[in-house]
């Protein structure tokens, strides 16, 4: 009996007479600590979710692996619009994403990128669209959200830190910050139904203790604290982009 309810709950295309308490259809994110704070217990369907990160590499994309993998296995597609780097197939495949149902869209940026994002959101039903808009205003965000609503899609926008100061119609806004030894901290800036005051803690990958010269172990998200084994510390800002390594492939 409970499994039937689960099946009925999981498909967004079925209207049920008495909606869940929040009235927000959502897909579970796969992170229990995050889901417990979100209305509908997951990523909002048919609405925008903004992921604001101080720096790339805090785990903003990794948050989505469980839900993207489950979409693929249900026959639904994941569309990436103008990601700033190269999505690396062996890593995506290793995390359970179905390459067969992954679409990569490259535009010349700016308005074309937003147009492509809106087209992807309006198309068909179900699935997810992920975009990295360079600059986007409130009105455009609202249009994207309405487009997502029309097709019951998951829509994820990755935005820079400055976006946290701007207002946005997105249904869900998360900001990721480094938490040092606590892993990555996720502050829920906005969600339908009120935000919890404390941030959610997500452990970082590859937390390991000891000799950095070990061979690579099988990675598992670990809640152990990291014992820093830093070498002489220089902040990241001193990294200077150098000339390309000869032979490195331009995508």
């Amino acid at each position: 009996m409970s499994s039937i309810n689960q099946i009925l709950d999981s498909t967004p295309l079925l209207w049920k007479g008495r909606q869940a308490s929040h009235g927000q259809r959502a897909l579970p994110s796969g992170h229990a600590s995050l889901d417990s704070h979100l209305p509908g217990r997951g990523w909002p369907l048919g609405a925008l979710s903004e992921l604001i990160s101080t720096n790339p590499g805090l785990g903003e994309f990794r948050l989505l692996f469980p839900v993207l993998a489950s979409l693929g296995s249900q026959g639904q597609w994941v569309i990436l619009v103008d990601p700033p780097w190269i999505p690396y197939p062996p890593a995506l495949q290793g995390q359970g994403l179905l390459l067969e149902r992954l679409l990569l869209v490259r535009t010349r940026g700016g308005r074309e990128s937003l147009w492509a994002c809106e087209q992807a959101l309006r198309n068909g039903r179900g699935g997810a669209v992920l975009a990295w808009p360079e600059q986007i205003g409130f009105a455009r965000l609202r249009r994207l959200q309405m487009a997502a609503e029309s097709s019951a899609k998951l829509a994820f926008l990755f935005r820079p830190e400055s976006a946290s100061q701007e207002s946005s119609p997105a249904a869900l806004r998360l900001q990721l910050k480094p938490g040092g030894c606590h892993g990555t901290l996720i502050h829920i800036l906005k969600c339908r139904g009120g935000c919890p005051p404390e941030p959610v803690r997500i452990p970082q990958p590859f937390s390991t203790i000891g000799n950095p010269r070990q061979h690579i172990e099988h990675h598992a998200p670990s809640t152990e604290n990291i014992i820093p084994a830093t070498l002489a510390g220089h902040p990241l800002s001193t990294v200077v982009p150098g000339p390309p390594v000869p032979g490195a492939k331009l995508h």
Partner: protein
Amino acid sequence: MEHDRPAERQALERLAAWCYQYSSQVCIPGDRNGLFLEAGASERLFGPPDRLCKRLEQELGQLGYQAMAGSAPTPEAAWLGAREGLHIPLPGQVRQQLGPLPLSLLHLDAAQQAALERMGFRQLRDLLRLPHKALTRRFGPALPDYLDRVLGIRPDPRAMYHPPESFSSRLELPAEIHSCQGLLFPLNRLLEELCGVLRGGDTAVQLLLIGIGHEDHEDSLVKLGLQSPTQDAGRLMAVLRERLERLRLPQAVREIRLEAPTLLRFNAGQHSLFRDTPAEQRQDIEHLAERLQARLGNGSVTGLTGVEDHRPEYSWRPRALDERPDCTGLPHRPTWLLPNPRRCTIGSYEILAGPERIESGWWDGHDCRRDYYIVRDSDGCTLWAFREYKPHRGWYLHGIFA
């Protein structure tokens, strides 16, 4: 204005192919501007002949043709009926319904017409009263043969038209068009004609060639490719609209041409209620990809796949949507690869795991010897860096575990 006979003939052939939706036996008589369709076999599908005639007149009107249709048990009688909009359901009624028609409507040559008028014949029924022998003696065997065929006494077999393997159509514009938006309406007409032909022959197109003729300039050519064959005018129009956004017209347009070089077999496929079967999701994605590529250019929408190579920058490539991906998942690889490895100072990072030696590529001149490490920077970002020994020494960032 002169008659452009070859163009008229071509138009008739296209219309014959278009009429194939409504009848499997279509004939183009060589001697007049019209078509014969056999309507009895599809009566259950399209209703009685007069309903079919009304529908044909209406739809041809939307395509830009003025048509008159009529029906009768024999082709020649139907032709006469068409001039007056008559519908004669039974053979026995032919004589009665067509009798009052003036002789000028008959399909006779001018000399015979004149001779008959001089003799005082005015209506078809006058002719039908005369004995055969008399008519043969005065006018030769052709005239009584014609009358027999009208009445159905003689059989009237016709050479059937066979639809061609390709479609080609052109439209001369009544006024010059200066903007791409203005081309949408005439192109839509041509597309509707094409789709009628496709429906009639159970065929579909995957490639369209559109020629745009200018007065003093070379023709502009637009190629429209689709991800899968289609019969759907709406889908073709959606892709065309995006493609025209990209088009620059060097001059005003006087003529447009539409060509479908190959007509493919068409499989309709099943539709489900929610459009959520994987096959339909795939179709939706194909339609999206077509529209995006029409506007953004080919190659703007791709999938991804792996390549057998140890060097990370060579171990992936974009793939076309109809190609199957083939990639081994690797657990310790970053989600994102930087397009070019970036120099970095390893002192600013904390090493989490490594080294993983990648040494490869001696065969194509881009060989490398690198030790890869998973590192974390002071801001808590997890990155993928390597120490290169060959060809250039140094530390570089190559990926981000976002």
